[in-house]
């Protein structure tokens, strides 16, 4: 009876071994990668990498270098990813600086000619002697030199220009046609050339306290320099674009005629421009 089974048991064993082997190699003990590139980083580490690039950009003010570093992550839409990350950080007061750095880097992505003023490093007591460096360098295993590193742009010590003149209100209008579904403060920010500016910080405050911050660039389908804020009935707002922009106060929901003598809430459209 047993002899009639033939060699099928061999095939069964082979399939069983193959199955176990594939499961082990794919999921249980997969290949451990080393010498990887930034684009392969998991999401959490990509966020860290991005934040470090942005903060270093604030220090170096070297746009080309920051963009080259950012390109290593191969994000499909770097500007949007940066803005989204900045928005997520805004809930925490401690991360305000980091959010600003990310937004500024997002602006640099869309406007590579952007020049910012670098943050001044705190002077140290170190003197630039190569001997000092060599004595402080311990002997450890020599890392592999890879050609890609030579592509990393080096910083230049050229003086940087300032961010530019503060934005001023160019246009303020009430939007009733079409009647908005919700009353919005619709803000568009343009540079001196009339181009939309993404990643620009907008602060909105209320007389009874409370300041919220948001950034342009989250709605690229409308405009890269567009941002909006939902106004609440009975509230009066003041907004400022950038850190030194013109303060626009007494902003509230405008009334739109509903055609039968009554009124409905409309939206406010504000256009800021760099002189």
């Amino acid at each position, binding site marked *: 009876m047993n002899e009639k089974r033939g060699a099928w048991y061999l095939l069964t064993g082979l399939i069983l071994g193959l199955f176990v082997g*594939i499961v082990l190699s794919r999921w249980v003990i997969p290949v451990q990668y080393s010498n990887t590139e930034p684009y392969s980083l998991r999401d959490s580490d990509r966020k860290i990498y991005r934040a470090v690039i942005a903060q270093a950009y604030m220090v170096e003010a070297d746009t080309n270098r920051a963009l080259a570093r950012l390109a290593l992550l191969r994000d499909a839409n770097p500007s949007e990813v940066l803005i989204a990350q900045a928005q997520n950080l805004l809930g925490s007061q401690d991360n305000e600086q980091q959010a600003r750095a990310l937004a500024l880097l997002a602006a640099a992505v869309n406007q590579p000619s952007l020049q910012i003023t670098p943050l001044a490093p705190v002077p140290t007591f170190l003197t630039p002697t190569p001997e000092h460096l060599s004595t*402080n360098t311990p002997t450890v295993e020599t890392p592999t030199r890879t050609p890609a590193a030579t592509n990393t742009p080096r910083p230049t010590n050229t003086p940087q220009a300032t961010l530019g003149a503060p934005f001023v209100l160019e246009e303020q209008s009430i939007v009733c046609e079409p009647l908005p579904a919700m009353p919005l403060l619709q803000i568009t920010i343009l540079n001196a050339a009339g181009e939309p500016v993404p990643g620009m910080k907008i602060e909105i405050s209320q007389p009874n306290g409370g300041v919220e911050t948001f950034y342009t660039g989250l709605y690229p389908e409308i405009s890269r320099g567009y941002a909006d804020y939902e106004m609440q009935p009975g509230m009066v707002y003041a907004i400022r674009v950038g850190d030194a922009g013109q303060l626009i106060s007494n902003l509230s929901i405008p009334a739109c005629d509903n055609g039968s003598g009554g009124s409905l809430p409309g939206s406010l459209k504000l256009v800021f421009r760099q002189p």
Partner: protein
Amino acid sequence: MKRTRLFGFLFVILLGLAAGLSYGWILNPAEVRNTSLDSLRSDYQADYVLMVAEIFAVDQDLPAAAQLLKHVSPVGPSRAVQESLITGQQLNYSIQEMLTLAGLEIAINSEVPLLAQETP
């Protein structure tokens, strides 16, 4: 005969196992993704550490810098900077960059922020 069949069965299981492992590890390994910062190539790690050092040079926030460095070197932040100094030398980092890295290394080793003093 029964014994022969058993050995044959075990042999083909091992054969299949070897084939499966070869497929998963060599022929069609898992896609390179979801890697961590500590698996980055040394030049990228050095550049990351340099960025951290530059940030530290401005904010003097040593705990924050150490936290960022732990991502690239679980052994310790000091080791990360040391390796970056070596990589930086090999890749011809500028003197200013090497000094920035050295400043961070000194701060980590002394565990106190560097005092801000004007260089004469």
